[in-house]
């Protein structure tokens, strides 16, 4: 299997695949045997611009030839295509699920760029929880 880079929202395989390429919180590097090699925090999140190119640079520097992600901007898309890196859509899955799907050839290949700043500003809002109390009243 190829070396894979997954853009993720946290630092382990149980975290969800980030829908944005350049400004994802973490890069998960998965080695040829399918084991998590390392999680790299993405410093490009803070970049004024060129976050996508910086992320693409991480992909090739880490030797990954497959990327599982979401929206890829035009600059990053162009250089990754030129470098022969294959891009797959893993949005909505955890990194682990995406890896399994990739092994089973079930992921869709990303063949177009999301457009400029396609993913900028995307994020996860606070979760809204509903809780209820359970239990009987105290018997007097």
């Amino acid at each position, binding site marked *: 299997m190829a070396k894979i880079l997954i853009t993720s929202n946290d630092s382990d395989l149980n975290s969800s695949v980030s829908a944005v390429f350049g400004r994802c919180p973490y890069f998960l590097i998965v080695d040829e045997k399918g084991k998590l090699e390392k999680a790299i925090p993405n410093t*490009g999140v803070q*970049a004024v*611009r*060129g*976050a*996508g*190119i*910086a992320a*693409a*640079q991480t992909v*090739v*520097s880490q*030797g990954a030839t497959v990327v599982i992600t979401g929206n890829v901007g035009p*600059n990053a898309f162009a*250089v990754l295509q*030129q*470098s022969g890196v294959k891009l797959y859509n893993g949005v909505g899955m955890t990194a682990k699920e995406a890896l399994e799907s990739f092994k089973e050839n079930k992921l869709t290949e990303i063949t177009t760029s999301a457009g400029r700043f396609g993913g900028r500003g995307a994020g996860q809002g606070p979760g809204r929880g509903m809780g209820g109390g359970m239990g009987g009243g105290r018997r007097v």
Partner: protein
Amino acid sequence: MKQVAITGGKGGTGKSTVAILLANKLIKKDKIVLLCDCDVECPNDYLLIGEKLKKPVRKVFAEFPKLNKNKCQKCGLCSKTCQSNAIFQAPGKYPVFIKDLCSACGACWAVCPYSAITPKKEEVGKIYLNKLKATTQSSKLFYLITGVAKPGLEETGPVVIQVKEFALDFARKIKADYLLFDTAAGIHCPVISALLGCDFAYAVTEPTPMGAYDLNLILDLCKKLKIPAKVIINQADLGDKKEIKKIARKHETRIVKEIPYSKEIVDAYSQGRLNKL
């Protein structure tokens, strides 16, 4: 000669309006004034005084990197040096320059140990000069220099710097008493470029929460650049000035002028005769 910036952080507070009104006032006091529109991404001072941009007096160039593949050793230093993420390089491959992201800073050819990168000049903007009769007295002149960046250009700070250099030369030639720089909105590179070297700045704001917030940012920037800044509130009677006063106090500066909402100004603005006020 005094160099004065008219800035303010927030867009639409009336920087251009105040710049032109200030020029009018100084011209009436028999001063020689040159107004320089540094909002090169969308200059509009010429529109507000009913002028057209005809023939550029000068073109602005910037230098972008060009790779000589015969000399390049693929060492990767250029890609690592670039602060704009504008150079991509896959291991063992030639670097790729992404022009959209390049700020034309020249760091890549400065660091290349093999002289494999050479600067290539490209036009990035134009400079225009308008000379018209000022206000009511026909003998006096209103000088306007306008910088225009090439549409789509990412980094316009270098254009502003060259426009200012031209304006400074011209101001010396006409023996100007005042050189006014009308800056863009914001606190980013083109604004910083416009502020640098100014003797002082007027921060034009409006009595709104956004106006106050951005005023705080621009006053912070002026402090960092060591440029004394004073506050002008435009449409001062249309909102709550409390926050503006608070920000001004925090920065130990003064509100030097409050311009009330005026139909006269709005009319002159929309009819392109702001210089006649």
